[in-house]
């Protein structure tokens, strides 16, 4: 075996890395997942989004065989997670949200341990270990205790430990939570390298920029999958920019916060979000740019430039969440203006 990474595997029964079909999971009276479905083609990165407690970790733990689904069917690399658990565990890697390698063992000891648990021996073990060390560039720290590594390096070590047995599917539960932007960028580059080697990845995250890099994304909200698909397709969903409305960006030279308060009072503005010195507005389609600019300039006492924009992924999730809140009749948050 060359040390260029996981080899191309023969295709499974279907060319999907992960298939989740109507999976629910109850914890006593609490339904943590409600009829969730998704599909990840082999070699793709799937972004799982959703607020805390929406069921992301539960879904990942079901796919790793740590939890049995109450109903529905899930398969990983063509194998049923509920019935073929042992075989599934041979083919997956799992990087949990919380660092869970042994802090009182060194980097090298941790890697040796996990490699041998996966049945790697002698020359094979050494070769795979060195490959993982090279990939994650953790070499300089090999003799350091894992507990003494910084957050970013711990994440790399966890990733390295989960890769040595050539997993075909990799699950990462908020791998970038709490690590700095440079480490975050490097980690994602690594994930793309793996995807390029036909590893299927499912990554849960809170970061929209990360979601936008994924081939597919799903948005879990209160245990249900609200929407799922290609990020570009999601931004074109009719609910996101309903008929008779359009999205514009208002570029303010200064006083964007004041302008936002003004925008909220305008009858034809459906929704406002602030991005630095700019506002993203959802407005009635029949209101011309010039009128919007004029109305906003009153508050800004500076020039406001209006230009049409596409919906962003964040717009998609914010919009869908609001629609859900309205439908369920819940008290909207302070940010969510009721309509």
């Amino acid at each position: 075996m060359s040390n260029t990474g996981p080899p191309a595997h023969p295709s499974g029964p279907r060319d999907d890395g992960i298939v989740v079909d109507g999976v629910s999971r109850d914890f006593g009276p609490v339904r943590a997942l409600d009829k969730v479905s998704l599909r990840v083609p082999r070699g793709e990165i799937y972004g799982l989004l959703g607020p805390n407690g929406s069921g992301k970790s539960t879904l990942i733990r079901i796919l790793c065989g740590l939890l049995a689904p109450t109903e529905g069917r899930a398969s990983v690399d063509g194998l049923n997670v509920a019935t073929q658990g042992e075989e599934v565990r041979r083919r997956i890697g799992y990087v949990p949200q919380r660092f869970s390698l042994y802090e009182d063992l060194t980097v090298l000891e941790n890697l040796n341990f996990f490699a041998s648990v996966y049945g790697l021996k002698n020359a094979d073990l050494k070769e795979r270990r060195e490959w993982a060390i090279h990939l994650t560039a953790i070499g300089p720290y090999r003799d350091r205790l894992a507990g003494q590594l910084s957050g970013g390096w711990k994440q790399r070590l966890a990733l390295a430990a989960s890769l040595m047995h050539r997993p075909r599917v990799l699950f990462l539960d908020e791998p970038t939570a709490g690590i700095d932007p440079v480490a975050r960028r490097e980690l994602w580059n690594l994930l793309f390298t793996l995807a390029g080697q036909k590893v299927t990845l499912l990554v849960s995250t809170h970061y929209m920029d990360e979601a936008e890099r994924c081939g597919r994304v799903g948005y879990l909200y209160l245990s249900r999958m609200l929407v799922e698909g290609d990020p570009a397709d999601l931004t074109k969903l009719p609910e996101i920019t309903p008929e008779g409305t359009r999205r514009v960006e208002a570029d303010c030279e200064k006083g964007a916060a004041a302008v936002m308060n003004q925008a909220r009072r305008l009858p034809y503005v459906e929704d406002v979000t602030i991005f630095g010195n700019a506002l993203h507005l959802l407005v009635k389609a029949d209101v011309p740019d010039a009128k919007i600019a004029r109305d906003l300039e009153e508050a800004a006492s500076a020039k406001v430039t209006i230009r049409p924009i596409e919906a962003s992924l964040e717009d998609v999730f914010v919009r869908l969440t609001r629609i859900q809140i309205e439908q369920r009749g819940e008290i909207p948050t302070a940010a969510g203006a009721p309509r």
Partner: protein
Amino acid sequence: MRGFLPVLKKEAVQMIRDRGTLQFALLVPAFQLVLFGLIDTNVKHVRTVVFDQSRTQESRQLLNDFVNTSFFDIVAYAPSRAALKELIVAGRASTGVEIPPDYARRRVQGEPADVLVLIDGSDSTISSAALAAANGVAFARSFSELARRAGAKDLPIRTHPLLLFNPDSRSANLLIPGLVAILLTFSGTLLAAFAIVRERERGTLEQLMVTPASPVAVVLGKLLPYLVLAFAQLLFILFLMTVVFRVPIHGSVPLLLALSIIYVFALLSLGLLVSSRAKSQMEAIQLAQMFLLPSIMLSGYIFPLSSLPAPLRVVAQFLPATHFIAISRGIIIRGASFGDLWHSVAALLAIAVVLVAGSTRAFHKTIT
């Protein structure tokens, strides 16, 4: 059994690196052993006050008899009965002897003489021993007096008590064989519980469960180093016991070690059972206490089993410590053989089998 050897090796490295665990396993027993080895539960030299109103040769003779038992030490003479009682209330003395003014006259005239013995009842060990000793002194003097009057040279019946196995009636010989069992109980249960709960607490158990390692292999691999540690601890305690405290092992050492393995197995399973319920090490300690406390109080280590009320005697039969204490005392003190101890061995074995089966099931349930 996939993953057994890697887990075993990893656990051994972690165990050796973890100073706290090693200290817990070796220093705590040494400390307790020293403490219990030096304690003497035989009551001697009880502080005694005397209110002697007779002040005659006869009364001094009686007081001498008291002192000669080496049980009573006369520490003060009181001027009145009130003062006598006061000294006992104040805790300056545990017993008081009051000799009436007519003691010598009555003795000479052959009339019964009364002696009042006050005993502090707040310590049951001392009071029961004092009662027996005071009666003994009075009986001995009365009998020899009666014999002299009857012209007999000797008493009709003489007892020759011989204290078997422990001729000097040293407490260490009695306490340490029981302590061996108690120390093993603590470390065996807690080490095993900690080993598993620590991994659960840190999330590493979950990481292990997504690997193809089998749960049984993980548990066995994790517990085996602690079995070795508990065994090393046992050898260490036995070494201190025989060499430092000079408590001889009268029976077979290999038999004792072989039966200890069964006991340690039962304890590790119990620890595993605790770990399947506890989410943190703190919780594990609390759960383990529910078992450890009865193991000390009801196993016959402190109180004889026969002094327990009937329902508690039944509970005691379900504690592995009860049977192992019987075994360790039997082998160490009485030199008992396997044939002498078979019912304790059978009970211990039965408990061990139930615990191993129960804990493996409970552990399986918690990880899936």
